[in-house]
Each structure stands twice: as structure tokens, then as C-alpha cells.
């Protein structure tokens, strides 16, 4: 099963500073995301049904929404590590 990101970890450090780290538990937003997507999906299904009945060629808004969610889920596993002359940035999505 493909799930949205669990945790987003961002670390920024500059020379001479303590830097900061944001360890954001994205998993806490899942219930909110579920409600928003559920509502949007109902609306998209109604729009698709109306478009289909009216004979419109394009009626895939609900699929588009689901695939967008899939795209969000596939962001998991992305890592970026950048070291400059006096700074360091790390972004990890789990």
C-alpha cells in the first residue's frame, strides 16, 4: 500500500550558528488530508458524472486527484544534502 510521507526532516546549519532542525511528523496531518481528499473526491466524482452525461471528452478529475495523491506518496525516499562554503542543508522525506 502506498502511503503519504511519514516524516519530513529538514536540517539547516550555517557556520558560527547553532542551526536548526525541523523534524515534522507529516503523519499527524494524515487525518486532515483524508478529510480534505474525501471531500474533494466526492466533488470530483460529481463533476466527472456531470461532464460524462453532458458528453464532454474529458471527465477524469477524480482520477487526477487520486494520481496527485499517489505522486505525493512517491516523494518518500527523497534525500538532499547540500554543503556550501559556510552552510549545510539536509532534507529527508521518509
Amino acid at each position, binding site marked *: 500500500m502506498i502511503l503519504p510521507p511519514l516524516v519530513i526532516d529538514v536540517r539547516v546549519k550555517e557556520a558560527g550558528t547553532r542551526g536548526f532542525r525541523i523534524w515534522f511528523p507529516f503523519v499527524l496531518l494524515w487525518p486532515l488530508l483524508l478529510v480534505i481528499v474525501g471531500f474533494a473526491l466526492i466533488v470530483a466524482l460529481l463533476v466527472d458524472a456531470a461532464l460524462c452525461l453532458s458528453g464532454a471528452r*474529458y471527465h477524469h478529475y477524480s482520477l*487526477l486527484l487520486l494520481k496527485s495523491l499517489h*505522486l505525493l506518496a*512517491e516523494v518518500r525516499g527523497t*534525500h538532499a544534502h*547540500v554543503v556550501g562554503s559556510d552552510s549545510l542543508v539536509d532534507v529527508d522525506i521518509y
Partner: protein
Amino acid sequence: MSEERARILGMLAEGKITAAEAETLLDALASTIEESTAATPGPAPASDWPTGPSASGTPKFMYVKVTGKDKVDVKVPLALLRAGLKLTSLIPPQAMDQINESMGEAGMSIDFNNLKPEDIEEIIASLREMEVNVQASDGNHVRVFCA
């Protein structure tokens, strides 16, 4: 600019240290940042990542590595690319026309309407053989590959 870096450059400007000494100090400062960050708990270090394209199998990640003056390590799941390409087939035609037009203006004449699911799998599989090596004039070495 950090306080230490500004102080080193200030000493250089005042003539208290030479350019070579300033460079040594700045290098030491940069390595201190890296060491202190490495000490904090985090993901597997980029040194554990593959150093080149995989010889067999379907690649799972795209790696972008920059070495030299700057150091960049980026790992992007190819599943993200696959999902993105599949999403393009569902974009409303009006929006897709605008995207194609904008990309054409930017010099990338790719018509995403022509992409079929089987083409996407073929593209992903072919990425295994792709490797980009760029030696920049500023001393940076950029490598892009999939493994």
C-alpha cells in the same frame, strides 16, 4: 555571512593575515560545520550511496552528485518520475496545451500527450544506462545517474 567567516575576512582586509592563511581558516571552518552536522543523528550518509549506474535490474533512484567547491548529494525515487509522467496523461487538455506551449517557449518541445504507459516503463528502464558527467569551469564535477 556567519560571524566567524566575517571575522576571518575582516582580518584579511586589515592585513593581519595573508590570503593563504585566510583560505586555510575558511576551509577549517567549513569542515567544522560538516563534522558537527555529521555528529547529529540523521539518515544514512551519502557515502553509502552507489557510485555509478547499476549494472542490472530496474533502477530505483536517480542520483545527482556534485563534488568540488560545493558538495551536493540528491537522491530522488524514480517512482516519483513514473507517477509524475502518468499524471500528465490525466491533465485536462486545455491545461496540457498551455504546458506544452510554455515548454516550447522554454526550448523544450516535448508533447506529453504522446506519452503512453508502455513508453514510461521503457524510459525508466533505459535510465539505467544513462550517466551524465559534467566538469564545470569552477572546479565542480556534476554526475547524474540512476541505480
